[in-house]
């Protein structure tokens, strides 16, 4: 199988806290890797290193057989790494289209003057939400996303990551803000993306979701890798033990 991502011996320190200590993970094409661990285990730090928000103090990242230096999130996105953040990272004062295209606005010209193509942004956001089978009333699409419900906002964050045809999709607690039917939608979505050969890193507290959706699991504990298992060869008792022991 094709190795898409290879994170080698990454360390990250914040002041006196060793958030990540010599952690290595890898990810194959079309594979879903679950990242589990207690609060403060380093899951979010690890994915922020991969998405270019944090720069590791040590270690390197190989993406598509290329050693890459992710100096900022833009660079990661250009390489095809999209992230759905736990806090969603939406600009609440902008509408759905503006959020999906934030940082990559399509341009057009009017009377020879370049302007942002808001119509295109609106029609594309309709499409991507429709593909996701997410229902946001048309009248709300042009409202600031701060006015949407938690589930709708989550949907916008997911839509934004998917619109750009990511090769690697990082999902940090993607179901946390969702109701039960929407959670199921997201789990179905992960399966669909997997069929399309998208590689996914999936962070969750919910072991049921992890066992349902992922192929492999890496457990972090206080910044170190506590263990790695193939999902079909482990069970939740073992995973919980990895998370809390030591």
């Amino acid at each position, binding site marked *: 199988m094709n190795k898409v991502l290879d994170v080698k011996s990454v360390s990250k320190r914040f002041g006196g806290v060793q958030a990540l200590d010599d952690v290595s993970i890898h990810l194959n094409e079309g594979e879903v890797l679950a990242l589990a661990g207690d609060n403060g285990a380093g899951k979010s730090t690890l994915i922020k290193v991969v*998405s270019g*928000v944090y720069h590791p103090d040590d270690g390197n990242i190989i993406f598509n057989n290329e050693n890459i230096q992710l100096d*900022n*999130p*833009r*660079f990661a*996105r*250009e390489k095809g790494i999209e*992230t759905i*953040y736990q*806090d969603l*990272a*939406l*600009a*609440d*004062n*902008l509408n759905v289209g*503006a*959020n999906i295209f*934030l*940082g*990559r*606005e399509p*341009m057009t010209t009017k009377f020879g*003057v*370049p*302007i*942002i193509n808001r119509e295109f942004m609106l029609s594309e956001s309709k499409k991507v939400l429709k593909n996701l089978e997410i229902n946001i009333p048309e009248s709300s699409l042009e409202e600031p996303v701060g*006015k949407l419900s938690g589930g709708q906002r989550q949907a916008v964050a997911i839509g934004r990551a998917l619109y750009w045809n990511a090769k690697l999709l990082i999902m940090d607690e993607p179901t946390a803000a969702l109701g039960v039917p929407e959670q199921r939608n997201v789990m179905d979505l992960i399966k669909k993306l997997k069929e399309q050969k998208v590689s996914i890193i999936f962070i969750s507290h919910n072991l049921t979701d992890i066992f349902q959706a992922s192929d492999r699991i890496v457990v972090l504990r206080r910044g170190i890798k506590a263990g790695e298992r193939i999902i079909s060869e482990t069970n939740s008792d073992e995973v919980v033990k990895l998370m809390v022991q030591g």
Partner: protein
Amino acid sequence: MMNSKTLKLISNFWNWIFLIFILTFLEGWARIVYGSTFLLNPFVIQSVLLFTAAPLLIGIGQTFVIISGGIDLSVAFAMGLASVIFATVIKSLAPELGYIAVLIGFGATCLVMLIPGFINGTLISRLNVPPFIGTLGMYGVARGTGYLTADGMTVPVNNDFLFYLGTGKIFGIPIPVLVAIFFVIIAHYILTYTKFGQYTYALGGNRQAAIRSGINVKRHILLLYMLCAFCAGIAGMIYTARFSAGAPQAGEPLMLDAIAAVFIGGASFFGGSGKIIGTVIGALIIAVIQFGIVFIDIKPFWQFVVVGIVIIVAVIVDQSKNKLKGERTDE
């Protein structure tokens, strides 16, 4: 009880309504007390527009900064500094250079004005100094530099072209007003139709979201404060042209007027919202109040009281907007 749609309209357009209200009041006063007219008097219109030009120009830059979630307190003295530098450069050049001296002065002032903006922007974006403190420091530095350059005096200039720019009219409209209109159009375009404007809103809405979507936030903040200083520089040069003199204290009374114009125009103190057209309305309201108080012949000090009250009302309206629109709010 009014329905929520009406309330929403009122809360969004209260500043327009208020402007129309004071204009109507002044027109009524003119007709009843003086038996003349306020609105149809070209002198009145011109005076109000001239009153508006400088605070509006400062307010344009301030609108960008406030939307991004910052504030720039240094603009008033940046304006004074620009006024002095513009005057000094023109004065130092041979008078027979005429309009060329003015152009050189313009270029030199523009270049110099990028410095306070660059320092403000660097302090705020790279060194994480809170905007309020960083620009307050620059307020002092620009003020001192202005007085030092002018040697504590005003700098008179004698240049016909400059005099024309400050006092001339095209199609009956004073040139300073035309300059302000030009910058209003450019600023509206940048804020509404370009990525730069979009990133300014995103930055004010959620800085983390802006960073994570790949926007170069540090560079953007730097550019915002440079833009703000540049706008203040234009206001300062207009001052020099209007009075044929550079004065370090040129912008002193305008600092609060310009910030007030932005908030009266509907921008949120917390960033993320605001419009150039709002700032235009805000600046007009302030100018009409200031001129109107002289017009109805009460003590001019009332203008401070009235403008102060209007600022407070503006913030209250902004705060209660969500409630009026029937949205979720935490008590």
